């Protein structure tokens, strides 16, 4: 319990620091949100009026105080660029990013776990070496390039894939899958490599442990040993990697949403940095941070349930 409380306190500290870092960075970044929005043809009178309306003529520390005060009341403020509440903008885009991230994690799981177990049994045989190298190549390809190649060679040839943006699930489940599968694969490929390696090494480690030797010496079949004992004991540490993978996947959505033109949170974040939309950047980063930290938090809790040996203090 104290562990849980400490985790929550840490979360709050992290979030406060995150907001302070974002805020201070934006204090030194040159560029005026109103001018960026209006471009070179901006009417000076209009610029002045808008800055007054948005409170941008106030000193920055007051803007921050106002913002933090709002957050305490659950109000993340107004986006400068979109003149809409930040929370509304984030909620609007959640379905895209959540679907994308979860699809990627699922792809990683259903490919990397069986393959890792399978290759652990074939440790250092040619097929293992070849596949290990292949996954490393998967990690080495720049994600936006991989996305482009997938669009070019799969998106254009297979009718199922839709490549011009997002089709909501409510309109068509098939359409949503078609629009999200390629980007999910793009995000998943480097993570498959990470997961595969981890599963493979954990299973190899387990296979070398004493209990496996004991069971083996009793003459029980290899398949049984692998599935009944080794796999179960391996899955527990593998679960913790999911926390890390999830953070990577969330980071992966940022560029990939850009490449595939998906209206998700990552694309919103990139455009809001470019447009210096401080309240929006702050809101999105806070949101992502909370989600990533919470997912890791639950993974830890789950870990303690699955493995009673861990005593959390």
């Amino acid at each position, binding site marked *: 319990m104290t562990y849980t409380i400490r985790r929550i306190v840490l979360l709050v500290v992290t979030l406060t620091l995150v907001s302070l870092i974002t805020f201070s960075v934006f204090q030194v970044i040159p*560029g005026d949100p109103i001018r960026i929005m209006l471009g070179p043809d901006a009417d000076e009178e209009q610029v002045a009026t808008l800055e007054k309306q948005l409170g941008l003529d106030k000193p920055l520390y007051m803007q921050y105080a106002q913002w933090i005060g709002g957050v305490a009341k659950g109000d993340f403020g107004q986006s400068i660029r979109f003149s809409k509440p930040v929370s509304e903008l984030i909620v609007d885009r959640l379905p895209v990013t959540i679907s994308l991230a979860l699809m990627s994690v699922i792809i990683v799981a259903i490919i990397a776990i069986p393959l890792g177990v399978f290759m652990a049994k074939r440790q250092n045989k040619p097929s293992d070496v070849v596949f290990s190298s292949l996954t490393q190549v998967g990690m*080495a390809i720049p994600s936006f390039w991989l996305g482009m190649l997938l669009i070019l060679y799969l998106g254009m040839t297979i009718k199922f894939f839709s490549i011009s943006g997002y089709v909501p699930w409510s309109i068509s489940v098939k359409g949503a899958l078609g629009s999200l599968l390629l980007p999910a694969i793009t995000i998943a490929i480097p993570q498959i490599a990470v997961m595969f390696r981890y599963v493979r090494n954990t299973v190899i480690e387990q296979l070398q442990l004493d209990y496996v030797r004991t069971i083996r010496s009793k003459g029980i079949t290899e398949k049984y040993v692998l599935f009944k004992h080794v796999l179960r004991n391996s899955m527990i540490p593998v679960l913790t990697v999911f926390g890390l993978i999830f953070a990577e996947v*969330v980071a992966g959505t*940022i560029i990939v949403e850009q490449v595939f033109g998906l209206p998700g949170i990552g694309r919103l974040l990139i455009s809001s940095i470019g447009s210096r939309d401080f309240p929006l950047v702050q809101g999105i*980063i806070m949101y992502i941070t909370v989600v990533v930290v919470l997912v890791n938090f639950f993974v830890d809790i789950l870990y303690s349930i699955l493995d009673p040996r861990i005593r959390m203090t």
Partner: protein
Amino acid sequence: MKSLLKRGKNINLIIGLLILSTFLIMMLMSFFYTPHDVNAMNIANKIKAPNSVHWFGTDEFGRDIFSRIMQGTRTAFFIGTVAVTIGITLGTLIGGVAGYVGGWLDEIIMRIMDALMAFPGIILALMLIAVFGPGMVNTSIALGLMSIPGIARIARSGFIQHKEFEYVLSSKLIGVKPFKIMFQHILPNVSSPLIVAASINFAAAMLAEAGLSYLGLGVQPPDPSWGRMLRDSQSYLATAPWYTFAPGIAITFMVLGFYMLSNAIRDITDPRSN
């Protein structure tokens, strides 16, 4: 079994070193010789498929892609080296002090590091670029700063572990200065995970530069950069696919080389895998 294990390790090491030394030789050569002038334009000769004169074809200004790939190795090594140097130096220093001193200082430093790690990498890089402005040097610095928290964590855990060891405690007793203990005594003993991290960070810097270039914010012309070339080639993906493969494969191989190297180092230095 053992010889097989060894062979598995060596494959990573051999291929990794082979790839990286090829790029290193290309870089050194580029100082003395490139088949064509790297920046010379010939608009009439733009987007020409690979041929005997231009081995990898020409880009949208009629410049020789092979020569630019060759010179691009300089940019790649520059960015990687600067980023890794900054990351490893500052990361080790910060993590080392936090781990060795412990207490409140450790708590404060690590909370800040946690907060920095909470940012998705590319976002931290984008924000740093927004502060410094785009360009080769600024990109390298931003990518270096970005890698500090991760390295600090690795360094910290090593220092925490070792500060309780006999050799450290006895040096303390005879009055060796803390800084000397940290960097002359402990550091060599905790360096292998840091070397692995350096190698991985080199690869990560290359990928991050490509990502920034995709967003138009990485290395800027006329410095030839693979990430930039990859971005420019996007427009010709359908009409001149060979254009995109030259920088794409160069980046992939460079990153692969460092990944393989890091795996090899980890296998050699990590006693658990033996």
